């Protein structure tokens, strides 16, 4: 028993919940075979803790306490429901049988199968039967232990919207009779890629927030990283999981350097590298090495991580291995061709082999419908033209880019460059 002031108990319960909730829900879902019901039961146990711990103190093993309490709730509930139908009777027996098998050592039950249970929960939350929004909400709720309010705050939607999304998602899972299990070998790769996509989506949602005025969005990056790291230990032989973790670690390492004092974005080559987080870089490089050792160097996430690693390894922008980056983009373009990857490849080509090489690729993209309205295309093209001293064309591109961006600072900057082109100079300020 840990003694503490009653006022601290609630905060401690929050902490315990964050550590234990996913394992708790997963363990319960294995028994009741219903993710939604499992979460309700876990919530009931949380309520019981909130009622009892301020009086009794926090138990020595809070996870086991919560599990024990939730299991008793489960049995009560299922017994009460027994008369409702045979299926529930069966469920009730299943619970009892499972309990007999597992009892009395809840802790051992938690430890033994928890990896598989947790993984089953991950796959259920990211099941393809759910919409992407629902997958994200359910993952954050069931695996991240986030409250509805926190999720709503992070995604700038209302709390009832999130609550409804979660209720509907749980119902969908139940109605579709999604089994609570780890997918078999053949299916695993596809299902895993859905999980990785959800995690990276959460990460990007936090990462793309430009201003630091919203505390929840940086927290999303941390949450996605935590989920990625957990997943990496659950399926340690899957290289793309490590690729994704590597990518997120390295992108997160630049969070502190990428926003200026007035909230303006600072682009990669202009960032103060001393402010990159070297703990995260080291972790990112280690995760990338793990992916590569597992033969996953050419997975889409691993390739992106390898590109990020080229930047992370360079002590100054001038040291950047641009030829290496070009090669990685070549591979990425083969694997997952997209106009945006192509535009990236063009920028890298220009950095490695001069503006003409980049422009050649950029020019193939100007009629690309998916890049229509994308300000970075004319912006990149304008820059390459200016470097080639084709100022008239460059000015035209900068003006177009300025008209396409919604960011005021960016627009000012682009118009400045357009004006400089009128004076026959590649940049508005001296380089």
């Amino acid at each position: 028993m840990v003694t503490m002031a009653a006022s601290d108990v609630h905060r401690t319960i929050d902490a315990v919940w964050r550590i234990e909730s996913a394992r708790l829900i997963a363990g319960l879902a294995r028994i009741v075979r219903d993710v939604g019901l499992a979460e309700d039961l876990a919530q009931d146990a949380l309520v019981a803790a909130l009622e009892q711990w301020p009086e009794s103190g926090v138990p020595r093993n809070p996870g086991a306490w919560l599990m024990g309490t939730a299991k008793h709730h489960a049995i009560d509930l299922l017994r009460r429901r027994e008369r409702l139908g045979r299926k529930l009777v069966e469920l009730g027996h299943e619970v009892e049988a499972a309990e007999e098998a597992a009892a009395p050592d809840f802790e051992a039950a938690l430890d033994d199968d928890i990896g598989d249970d947790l993984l089953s929960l991950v796959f259920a939350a990211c099941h393809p039967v759910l919409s992407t929004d629902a997958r994200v909400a359910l993952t954050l709720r069931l695996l991240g232990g986030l409250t509805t309010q926190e999720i709503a705050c992070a995604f700038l939607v209302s709390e009832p919207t999130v609550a409804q999304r979660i209720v509907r998602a749980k119902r969908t899972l139940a109605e579709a009779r999604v089994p609570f299990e780890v997918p078999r070998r053949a299916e695993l790769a596809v299902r895993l890629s859905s999980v990785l996509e959800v995690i990276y989506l959460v990460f990007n949602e936090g990462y793309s927030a430009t201003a630091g005025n919203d505390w929840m969005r940086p927290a999303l990056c941390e949450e996605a990283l935590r989920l990625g790291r957990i997943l990496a230990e659950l399926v340690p032989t899957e290289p793309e999981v490590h690729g994704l973790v590597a990518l997120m670690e390295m992108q997160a390492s630049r969070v502190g350097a990428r926003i200026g004092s007035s909230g303006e974005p600072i682009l990669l080559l202009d960032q103060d590298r001393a402010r990159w987080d070297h703990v995260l870089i080291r972790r990112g490089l280690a995760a990338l090495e793990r992916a590569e050792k597992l033969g996953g160097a050419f997975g889409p996430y691993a390739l992106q991580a390898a590109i990020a690693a080229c930047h992370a390894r360079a002590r100054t922008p001038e040291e950047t291995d641009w030829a290496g980056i070009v090669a990685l983009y070549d591979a990425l373009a083969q694997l997952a061709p997209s106009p945006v990857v192509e535009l990236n490849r063009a920028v890298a080509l220009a950095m490695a082999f001069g503006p003409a090489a980049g422009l050649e690729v950029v020019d193939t993209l100007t009629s690309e419908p998916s890049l229509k309205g994308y300000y970075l295309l004319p912006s990149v093209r304008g820059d390459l033209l200016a470097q080639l001293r084709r100022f008239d064309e460059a000015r035209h591109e900068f003006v177009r880019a300025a008209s396409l961006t919604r960011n005021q600072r960016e627009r000012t900057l682009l118009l400045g460059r357009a004006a400089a082109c009128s004076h026959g100079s590649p940049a508005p300020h001296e380089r």
Partner: protein
Amino acid sequence: MRFMMLVKASPDSEAGVLPSREMVAAMGKYNEELIKAGVMLAGEGLHDSSKGARVSFSGQNRTVTDGPFTETKELIAGYWLIQVKSKEEAIEWASRVPFEDGEIEIRQVFEDSEFPPEILPPGEAERERAMLEEVQRKAAKP
């Protein structure tokens, strides 16, 4: 937020006594738990202070004092760096360390964002030639 869990030295750790096999195994299990929970960023044990030194500052002068140092309880014997959501979560993790005696001190790590810009100025303003960061982010859908 990040916390350091600092392990205080003990007469044993200062004498260079290695932990028992049981303790090493228990610590391995604990570290694994931290890693599986996705909270562990780094962690290491430190040699006893006889293998260390102190550099003290007074104006332009630097004085080097070789270890060992006597005030055992004030010395650090190891650390974990963890990423958690609250101090209470850090306390919860620290409480789970399989020690039978000794002490762990929990300290929050400063983030860049906690410094006002006049103390820690941001990097040079942007040159938009370098658009990679943003483009890369948009390329993020493999």
